[in-house]
């Protein structure tokens, strides 16, 4: 029992110290916007990595999510003779929840893991130390452009995910199940309000900053990995980056949703 309490205490202290460390890391990365040199070029490169390279997966997952929603929703609503509300079901599910959450998870899987691995390798091969010896702010050079890009890209990718998802819902409901397209699209138009769009945007921006910072933090600190060294440390950091980012997305989603539901 004594050992269990000791272990629990040690792990809690470790978690708190890492949270504090992460907060300093995020603060330092955002503060570096002020002094960072030639930022636009690096932001553009990050936009390409998080935006253009991740576009196919966003479009594919968005389309299938909408199609599944359309199919499931049609059969459930049909039982009550309310298939005319399919557009409402698909649009609210997508805009409020699925688009920001799933787009963020897809971006974590592709861009976030790549970022953690890249920074981990740069840490291992002393490239980050080299930057520091040159007097370059390594956070400003490596992390800040990715954070700025995430603020721009995550909402755009989320909007695309939602748009393609709505189209997927229409494909299932109208083309396959025979629902009148006009009924579907008019219920979509009636369902989405400005509050839903605000919630969607807020979630996308928050997830973007949070997941990018978590992935960058793990890669940047790959040398501090307790369970492994070298290539295995990079691998472990990448895994933890994806795991922690995914948990953070779902946990923060709950917090934001509960705030909007109450208001």
């Amino acid at each position, binding site marked *: 029992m004594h050992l269990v309490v000791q272990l629990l205490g040690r792990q809690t202290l470790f978690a708190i110290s890492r949270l504090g460390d992460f907060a300093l890391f995020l603060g330092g990365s955002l503060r570096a916007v002020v002094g960072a*040199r*030639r930022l636009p070029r690096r932001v553009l490169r990050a936009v390409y990595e998080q935006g253009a390279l991740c576009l196919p997966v966003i479009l594919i997952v968005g389309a299938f999510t909408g199609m599944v929603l359309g199919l499931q929703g049609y059969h459930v609503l049909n039982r009550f003779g309310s298939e005319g509300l399919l557009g409402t079901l698909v649009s609210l599910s997508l805009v409020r929840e699925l688009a920001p959450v799933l787009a963020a998870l897809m971006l974590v899987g592709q861009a976030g893991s790549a970022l953690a691995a890249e920074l981990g390798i*740069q840490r291992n*091969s*002393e*490239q980050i*130390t*080299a*930057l*520091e*010896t*040159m*007097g*370059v702010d390594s956070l400003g*050079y490596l992390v800040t452009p990715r954070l700025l890009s995430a603020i721009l890209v995550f909402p755009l990718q989320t909007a695309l995910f939602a748009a393609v998802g709505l189209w997927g819902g229409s494909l299932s409901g109208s083309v396959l199940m025979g629902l009148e397209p006009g009924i579907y699209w008019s219920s979509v138009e009636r369902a989405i309000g400005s509050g839903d769009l605000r919630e969607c945007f807020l979630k996308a921006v928050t997830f973007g900053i949070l997941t990018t910072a978590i992935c960058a933090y793990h890669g940047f600190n790959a040398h501090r990995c307790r369970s492994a060294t070298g290539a295995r440390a990079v691998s472990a950091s990448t895994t933890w980056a994806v795991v922690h980012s995914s948990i953070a997305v779902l946990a923060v989603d709950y917090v934001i949703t509960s705030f909007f539901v109450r208001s």
Partner: protein
Amino acid sequence: MSDPLLQVSGLCKRFDGREVLSGVSLDVRRGSVFSVIGPSGAGKSVLLKCIAGILLPDSGEIRFDGRPWTDAAARADFRRRCSFLFQNNALFDSLTALENVALPLEQTTRLSNREIRARSLDALRQLEIEDAADRHPGQLSGGMQKRLALARAIVTRPELVFFDEPTAGLDPLRRNAVFAMIARYQRQLGFTALIVTHDLSEALVTSDRVALLDGGRIRFEGASEEFFQSDDPVIRDFRDSVQVLGSTVASIRNSDPS
């Protein structure tokens, strides 16, 4: 005799209770080549990283150009006037050779793009690798990567360049070439060089002064000629190690295989 550019006194560093540096003191004179030699695990790289600010020493003082770099402004000034050449070069593999060399200028100066390009190409030209400007480090040979790392180190026109085991993992011919390159560009550009190496013969030939680090302590500091003449048993052992290896190998070869 010129004044010291770098003064290190009483530097100590421990890792997990193990003392790696125990009160190391050095004076590196402006415009000279100073080598710290010693066996593997003697604490040479730790010493260099403490001086360069990569590691934080537990105690001791470092003065650069007469100023202790204890406050942020002095440290920033130190970083601006120094460069570091890493053992594994630490080149950015996603950037081309030209972009690698341009990086410190882009990030630490307010020069125009045209000036940065001109200075970067000039550094590549000085190191005779201008033809590789558009190639990535992975497409270059080991020797060219070393020259590229040196080009990146000198492009900011530093006063002091740190070399961490610049010949580690290279064959004897390349080792000679790297030391010759350091000596040549040091004379040409006039920077002060602080080299950490275990290549005794090359270091003695190239350096104005050498220090022998053994067990975290400086066992000898003086001119290369003094090192050759020293009667200290540790220095003698270290100095004679090359000959000892030669005679050991000769005796193995001459011995009966059965």
